[in-house]
């Protein structure tokens, strides 16, 4: 046997705070799951990290488990997200220094726009379905995921529910640089990953089952580590500090309820690449009667099916029209009866994720991005509405715009005439950040 260079190894880690019965659910008081990748003289390949396990959905509790819903029970999850919908926040921090490296809030809301915009329907049928247990239709997803009776019978039971193995899209983990785990000056000093789970009422839509809940089992983290070759390790040991650059996601939340909607944010970020946001009536959040992950156009009144059109959008930086030096005037401004979406709003929204011309796979189509009035937020073809607003700040240099001292402002002229129809706005900012680390700890330069 000859070693021809550095090698890699797989790791398999159990959560550090798992209960004795290995069952994890928000309902039973386990809202946070923590994994610790210990400090060691190796690199973590961030993109190889996966959270794996099994998830079951129950309509009513029964002992440690519950009763699996059938197709008549109408217990659904969001078809765009699948298992990703259980995650409310992801916190990545150093195991040794405890400094936070990246903290993404409203993770499911972020992914409910991100995933369908950059993956095709065939991919949603395929590998997203296998890894995240999602299928791109609410009913199809309900039957295949919520109604999976695997494990209900004691005979030859191996496990319960659905198997999943998901990655965690985040700037730090998806960085192309390998993550040093050492605390001796060339790494972050181990990695702690805290996953905050969402309440059952956010993950599930179960209008007739107010005790419906989800439960995780056999949870673990798998990843691949690089073992530096001896000469490489000896060179690393002489390093006293290092840096890593990555695109981080920062999230914000606000509400709007007027025809002149203004969002003002002090981002405090110096290299902002793009901003995007999605909407949902506030009443639909954390509500078992509604799917809290839908990304709907703003609506005045579900009963009448009236959509509150966005007629004009202006993006401002410190009071100046930046990056677009003009207002986006939507096609519905002069004709409120139009049901086709505004292409300019859509293009800028998609462009805020990745350059529009490079985005060759998406689920956005006239079926999933339109202004057709709807009276029920439960009935959409394909994976549902994929509405959002966004803008790329810098599609050329890749260095972003400086919002350290300037305020980001979004000004929208909307058709929100019903003051009781408060709309929640989830705003996500993609920015470039630099992590500086040495033997004393680490610092994130935003």
């Amino acid at each position, binding site marked *: 046997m000859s070693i021809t260079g550095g090698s890699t190894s797989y790791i398999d880690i159990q959560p550090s705070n798992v209960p004795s019965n290995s069952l994890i659910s928000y309902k039973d008081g386990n809202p946070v799951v923590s994994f610790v990748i210990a400090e060691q003289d190796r690199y973590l390949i961030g993109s190889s990290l996966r959270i794996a396990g099994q998830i079951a959905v129950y309509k009513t509790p029964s002992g440690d488990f519950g009763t699996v819903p059938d*197709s008549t029970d109408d217990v659904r999850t969001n078809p765009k997200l699948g298992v990703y919908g259980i995650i409310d926040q992801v916190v990545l921090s150093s195991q040794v220094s405890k400094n936070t490296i990246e903290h993404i809030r409203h993770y499911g809301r972020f992914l409910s726009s991100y995933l369908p915009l950059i993956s095709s329907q065939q991919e949603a049928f395929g590998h997203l379905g296998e*890894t995240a247990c999602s299928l791109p*239709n609410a009913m*199809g997803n309900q039957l*295949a995921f919520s109604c999976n009776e695997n494990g209900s019978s004691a005979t*030859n039971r191996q496990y319960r529910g659905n198997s999943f193995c998901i990655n965690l899209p985040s700037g730090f983990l998806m960085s192309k640089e390998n993550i040093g785990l050492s605390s001796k000056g060339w790494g972050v000093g181990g990695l702690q990953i805290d996953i905050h789970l969402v309440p059952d009422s956010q993950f599930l839509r179960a209008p007739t089952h107010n005790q419906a809940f989800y439960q995780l089992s056999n949870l673990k983290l798998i990843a691949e580590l690089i073992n530096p070759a001896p000469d490489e390790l000896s060179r690393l040991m002489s390093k006293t500090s290092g840096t890593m650059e990555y695109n981080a996601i920062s999230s914000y939340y606000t509400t709007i309820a007027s025809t002149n909607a203004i969002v003002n944010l002090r981002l405090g970020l110096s290299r902002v690449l793009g901003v995007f946001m999605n909407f949902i009536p506030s009443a639909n959040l954390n509500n078992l009667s509604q799917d809290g992950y839908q990304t709907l156009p703003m609506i005045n009144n579900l009963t009448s099916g009236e959509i509150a059109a966005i007629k004009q959008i202006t993006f401002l930086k410190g009071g100046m029209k930046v990056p677009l030096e003009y207002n986006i005037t939507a096609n519905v401004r002069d004709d409120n009866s139009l049901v086709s979406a505004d292409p300019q709003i859509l293009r800028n929204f998609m462009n805020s994720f990745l350059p529009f011309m490079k985005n060759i796979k998406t689920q956005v189509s006239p079926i999933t991005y339109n202004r057709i009035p709807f009276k029920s937020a439960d009935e959409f073809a394909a994976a549902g509405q994929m509405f959002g607003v966004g803008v790329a700040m810098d599609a050329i240099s890749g260095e972003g715009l400086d919002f350290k001292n300037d305020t980001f402002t979004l000004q929208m002229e909307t058709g929100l005439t019903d003051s009781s129809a408060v709309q929640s706005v989830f705003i996500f900012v993609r920015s470039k950040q630099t992590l500086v680390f040495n033997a004393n700890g680490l610092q994130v330069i935003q």
Partner: protein
Amino acid sequence: MSDMMNNNDSDDTGRIPDLMRIGSIPTDLQMSFDTDVLDPVVINDDFCRFVLPNKGFLHSFSKITLSVEALAGKEQASFPVNVGVHSLIDRCALKIGTTTIAEVVDFGHYMAYKSLFIDNQINYDRENYLTGRNNAKEWIYKNNNLNSNTLGCSDVNASFYTLKTRYNLEFPEGAAGTNTGASGDVENDPVLINQNSPVFSVSVADLFEFLKFNQLPLYMIDQQISIELHFKSAASLGRLVPDKTEGSGGLFKIDTSRVKFVSDHIYYDGDIMENYRVQNPELNWTYVDYQLNKRSFTNTTLASKQVFNVGGAGRLVNKVFTSLSQVFATNDLRLTNEYSSACVGMSGENHGLLTTNLRFNDNFLFPIDPTNIAVHFHHLLDAEQNVPHVTREEYSFEAGEGGITGLFKYMGYDQADGQEGLAGKFTWLGYRLNRNERVSSRGIEVEITYSTMNAGTYIHRAYLEVVKQASLRNGIFETDFA
């Protein structure tokens, strides 16, 4: 380009790029093509051989066209949805002189694996007509089989999905709210069925994977270059899949008059090619080839841990991928024919457990034997560094009450059936040997346990991707294991 310009050579030869490596050729380098349509020098229903002219560089996506004669009584037959026309080839070999450069055995099974990684949108748009493959999916909204859901037929709620074809796009619609409507039958595109004897093509880069990264300098080789295809025996019933109503059997014959090699040759302007020859009297490069290890098990033996050696001793092995195919007397009455890999079975509503690991150089690849089927899928992705495009039900059987439709048949076959359909027929396992070590004399051992399987005999295939090195010295080609 700038790297090339930094070379200190003052004559033209110093600016010759690496013409063999695809991707290293500058965009402003002029090239020209010619295309030959070659007949095989030997052809019958079992075998064919092409001899390539020693000129220019062989374009890696040159094609071999293949077709099957129309067979009475099997008009609706078509190629297996997941491998297409590749099912006709049992073994392929690239030979230079008397040296076999690359060879793949059980080629249909090998391509069943490689086809996993083709985006289904590409399958639907392109591969359907190039190779006869189609594993794209679409929802059925006109859904009579919505169990007892009160929504009945719906324009927004789709309970099941089906293979996506360009034919029968409108499914039969029952009365809204009913649970039992007339079922329909999804058919293949008529131009792709045996009645019309469609001609498909196979890329040489699919036959010999190293050609995806290297283009052979045929003009520099002084030996005979030949491609040999051993066809799948017609009697094995492994060539096509008849419509279910047409029944099993039937000897589909290769249409030997339509087997051609459409060979594209690349030439570069001026003295570049001659200078490249002069500059490289000896060319060396490494490439990968595939070795097959095959053995049979019964469902009983699979229920307990099986540890077996799959070879690789003394070799540099990048990865191993494996399948487990159930043996049927009538393999042709399955949508995938014999080219599938069985998932662990079910006991009632309960899924079985598939446990595996791989051991080489006295160490296990995974620290804990993986049992989670989604983790197996991840390791498959990791081994190939590409995403398998199969659905959850196809890979892991997990589909609850939904998934692939059983009501709307495809060519008469129940798509949701684990035997004749697609459910649980794509469970390939992948292992990437990530320690960067040469395999010791003990070789590689695979461990598998399938807790529940349908009664029957299964063939386990393990393909080892081994590294080989080739040298072209003064027109003479040599190859050996790295």
